[in-house]
């Protein structure tokens, strides 16, 4: 069954307290390679049958209407899962 993946991310780092909290733990755990962590959300939409252009557009519409809040987040990606 095909799956459409929608990734939603918080806008700038200032709007990502959860990412910042994870970020703050890294040095103590020895992960010094990463200068920043940002935490977003991944949604998986299962489609019964083929993913047409229309269905992908519907997924984008759902992302804009419900899955992301444009005040604080942006839709980073909408694509059919490989």
């Amino acid at each position, binding site marked *: 069954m095909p799956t459409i993946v929608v990734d939603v991310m*918080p806008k700038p780092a200032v*709007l*990502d*307290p*959860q990412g910042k*909290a994870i970020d703050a733990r890294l040095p103590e755990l020895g992960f010094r390679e990463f200068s920043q962590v940002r935490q977003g959300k991944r949604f998986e939409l299962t489609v019964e049958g083929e993913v047409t252009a229309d269905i992908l557009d519907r997924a984008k519409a759902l992302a804009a209407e419900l*899955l992301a*809040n444009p*005040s*604080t987040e942006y839709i980073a990606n909408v694509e059919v899962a490989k």
Partner: protein
Amino acid sequence: MSAPKIGVVMFDAATDAPSVLRAVELAGGTPVKLHPKTTVAPDLADLPLVILPGGFSYGDYLRAGALAATQPIMRVLEDAVKAQELTLIGLGNGFQVLTESGLLPGGFIANDVPVFEHAEVDLVVENNTTAMTAAYDTGEHIRLVHKGAFTQYTATEEELEALEEQGNVVIRATESPAGSVNNIAGISSDDGLVLGLMASPEYAIEAGFGTDHAEGPGQGVDGQGLFVSVVRAAIAAKNGVVSE
């Protein structure tokens, strides 16, 4: 005059709703429960004001307030606000529902320190011409309960500028426990018909069971003013008096 009716939306598992019903009653109003699935507008001539109570309806899944905002009653209330027939007030989680509905600008994200915060917050009433603040003085300090994990208010620069310029920041914290931008706690729409407050005034209405106070623990009843304001606004609306 008979007690004016105030609508209270009974979102599933909105744990603050019973306290809001009681607060409305103590302030001299008659609370009317509204079901979130209803698609029929209440008789707005008889019921000019509706409160969205807090209490983490539908959890904080997706985003706090996002799923409650999709309930059928929100369409009905939105239409009534657009027709200038209804004043809509969101308290705590109810405020999040209003931003998620697009009825108020901005949005809520995880607290600055991302944990569930339960604190008493000192607030200043900056605008006492609204349906939720008329019984307070401008500049009055009030102390209310603040609770939740996703209570950090934020908005775009343009939204913030507009809020501040229009005097739509109605209540401001002296220091927001969630790290909200500009310490914003309560805001109003331009027409004053949609109001949100990130605090729980319903837990500061009865001496002995309110917030901490100089006179002793639990003696703070600063939330009363909000519900008295609401009841007054409902009376004024029923008499056809347009509030300021």
